């Protein structure tokens, strides 16, 4: 949780080495360090990476452009998913690998409601109605995963494998395998720009979602219960918590996150491609949680670190695109960086780094004495 990351006030007299050691121990260290490294790399390679320009789009509205804007914009879905994935990971000690497929379902449901049975390009229903139905359907699919994991005690990865496999077919089936296109520009506002506002809308949606989850964590016991259940379900139960309910709830919340991400996805293109939309996003979402230093085996979690992790992943992806890495080669490059980050955040490596620093620290005074 966010409150856990605050550095306790310590005495000024601590040596630099000790401070560094304390810093390395912080859960936020890895994502922050990774972000700084990426920023530094881009600064050296091409400072223009950070340029933000005010231009106009095809409709003549003012829009901000630049790689930073692209990162913030494109990371939105991932950030929203990382929120739910963090809770699912913490509560159930496993991950939901069906989020990409259920995004396809969510998007398909939206289009189905908006376009009606004959896939007409004019909207047949208000967007908010479509979104509401999309939320309900996504939460139902989340609940399906939740029941399998929480009540039938199936391993999360196996349980969610069902929708991972079937999800995109279900999405296609919802629209009779047609690809409805919506021509009304209002629909595209959520995925692109609202006329007059130069900042891409997904950025605001992501910020809103982050704000909501932090308010929920602050004003409810979701954080405490989720962590307690993830660490020790048996003792949580003896303290009056219903572990099954909490796990179930986590999957339903992730379902809601999927609905929002699905809305953004279909709004970006005003249409959907069932087999490509949000492809492999589940792996990025899981990676965001891991990058945030959260144990994938469940238990304690740090929401802020997961969210930062999501932005770091998008930063990395965009940086690779900028340097003209072929999109088919992208995963390989990404994997290299991921290996470095994950190895760095492994407890064994952290301990080793800590002890190295300690040795350096104790060697210094000896030199001074000599």
């Amino acid at each position, binding site marked *: 949780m966010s409150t856990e990351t605050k550095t306790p006030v310590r005495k000024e007299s601590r040596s630099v080495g000790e401070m560094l050691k304390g810093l390395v121990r912080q859960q936020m260290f890895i994502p922050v360090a990774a972000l700084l490294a990426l920023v530094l790399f881009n600064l050296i390679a091409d400072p223009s990476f950070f340029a933000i320009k005010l231009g106009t789009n095809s409709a003549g509205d003012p829009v901000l452009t630049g790689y930073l804007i692209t990162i913030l914009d494109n990371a939105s879905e991932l950030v929203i998913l990382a929120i739910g994935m963090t809770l699912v990971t913490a509560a159930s000690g496993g991950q939901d690998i069906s989020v990409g497929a259920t995004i396809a379902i969510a998007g398909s449901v939206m289009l189905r409601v908006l376009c009606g049975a004959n896939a007409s390009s004019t909207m047949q229903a208000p967007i908010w109605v479509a979104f509401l139905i999309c939320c309900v359907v996504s939460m139902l699919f989340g609940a399906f995963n939740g029941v399998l994991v929480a009540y039938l005690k199936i391993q999360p990865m196996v349980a969610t494998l069902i929708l991972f496999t079937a999800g995109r077919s279900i999405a296609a089936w919802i629209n009779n395998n047609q690809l409805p296109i919506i021509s009304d520009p209002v629909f595209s506002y959520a995925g692109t720009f609202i006329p007059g506002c130069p900042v891409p809308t997904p950025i605001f949606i992501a910020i809103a979602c982050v704000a909501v989850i932090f308010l929920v964590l602050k004003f409810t016991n979701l954080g*405490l219960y989720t*962590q*307690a259940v993830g660490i020790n379900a048996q*003792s*949580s*139960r*003896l303290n*009056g918590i*219903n572990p099954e309910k909490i796990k179930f709830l986590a999957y339903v919340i992730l379902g809601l996150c999927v609905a929002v991400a699905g809305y953004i996805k279909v709004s970006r293109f005003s249409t959907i491609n069932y087999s490509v939309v949000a492809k492999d996003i589940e792996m990025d979402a899981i990676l965001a949680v891991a990058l945030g230093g959260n144990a994938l085996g469940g238990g304690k979690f740090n929401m802020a670190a997961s969210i930062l992790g999501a932005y770091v992943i998008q930063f990395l992806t965009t940086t690779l695109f900028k340097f003209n890495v072929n999109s088919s080669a992208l995963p390989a490059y990404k994997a290299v960086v991921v290996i470095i980050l994950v190895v760095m955040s492994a407890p064994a490596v952290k301990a080793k780094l800590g002890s190295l620093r300690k040795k350096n620290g104790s060697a210094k005074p000896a030199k001074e004495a000599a």
Partner: protein
Amino acid sequence: MQEGAVLELRGISKFFPGVKALQNVDFTLRAGEVHALMGENGAGKSTLIKCLTGVYPKDEGEIYMAGHDKAVNIRSPQDAQNIGISTVYQEITLCPNLTVAENMYIGRTKGSVTHWKQMNRGAEKILSELGIPAAPGQQLSSCSIAVQQMVAIARAVDMDCKVLILDEPTSSLDESEVAKLFNLMRDLKARGVGIIFVTHFLDQVYEISDRITVLRDGQLVGEYVIEDMPRVQLVSKMLGKELGDISGIKEQSDASVDMGSVPVLEAEQLASTAGIKPFDFSIHKGEVNGFTGLLGSGRSECVRAIFGADRTVGGTIKMNGKPVKIRKPLDAMKNGIGYLPEDRKLDGIVGDLSVRDNIILALQVMKGFFKPFSRAQAEAFADEYIKLLEIKTASSDTPINSLSGGNQQKCIVARWLLTNPVYLILDEPTRGIDVGTKTEIQKLVLQLAGEGKSVTFISSETDEMLNTCSRLVVMRDRKVVGELKGADLNQDMIMATIAGGEAQ
């Protein structure tokens, strides 16, 4: 090295962030002796053992073994095993989903080929030699905790060790099993094995040990030959203070119980899925009573049924004369019942969470999902109980699993005290805890009773029950077989009732 010594530790120190767990500790073990290592919670017993067995790297000091010229370097439990140091830990560290035989041979087979037949035959031989009721092919988790413990010991015994470390081996064994273990220890002694015996049971120390080394606050207090060391003196050495007189307090509290009044809690024909026979039970305001019986007799299952921890399949519960429905723990909590479970590690603590979160957990759950305590409020609660129960922790932010066992237990006690229950169930609150804390907990129980709370106190140590309880429910084979009070409340009568012959 000294004459006859198999193991010598010199000037061992170990530091954890903010804590000096061990400071310059010496320890000598001679061949063919049982050497008790004693001290309060957090005295450094477990840390010393872990340094010796390579679980923790030691920060200072040397370890010498007979047969090695120089100080030995133990970097991992595997190293320790190889030079002949075997350990059976307090908490069982075997693999529950492997078979008994696999557990006994895991990590010890040579080469990449396992001879299953040979392994099972070897296991069978040792198990029958030691009289352990387990089959080699049986999955370990299907054995009782006591048998699992004995398998762990059998494993160590089978490794031809020169030094055998038993860290609280008896805390989950009943008396006949303890006797078996002691026979085995005497047998090993005769073969020249040095045994380090860590325990909190004074009786057992005096029954089996030759020497005692006492630690306090990470420092060596001294090494003593058992004959020269009266119990009282040993206890005061461990505590560094005198023990309070507990029986005096009991007399006072006994008088205030009005047995004619409506009971605080009354259970009739209660039965649960855990397989206990339907039983009746009642407790009055200000009363301390207990369940007693051998291991597995169903005493824990009784209180779990009352608390709703196991699903009840029949019977009724009345509180203050009114029927209440207790289907799950939260129902019991809302009716003012608190329950400290028997297995601290599995059912009690929430490992990675802070001491603070662990203390406020039950009260927080009762308050509700949408009403979290403010950080300041939670901190105030935690600090209050850390001070009240003298919990040794760096701060309320420290994860509870970095505390010693006794201090973890105090946190769980604090958790339930914070909910201000009318009826508190303490199932083995003193297991694996040092004498000082044991006494403190017993005093606390009597104090709570004095304040008008009702307490059920369960302990494997009959002494403790006699000290605190005014009424004992005796169980055998998952069935209540008697109830003892007043003049009947003594060791002999309890034994007789447990052994057979209904107590009426």
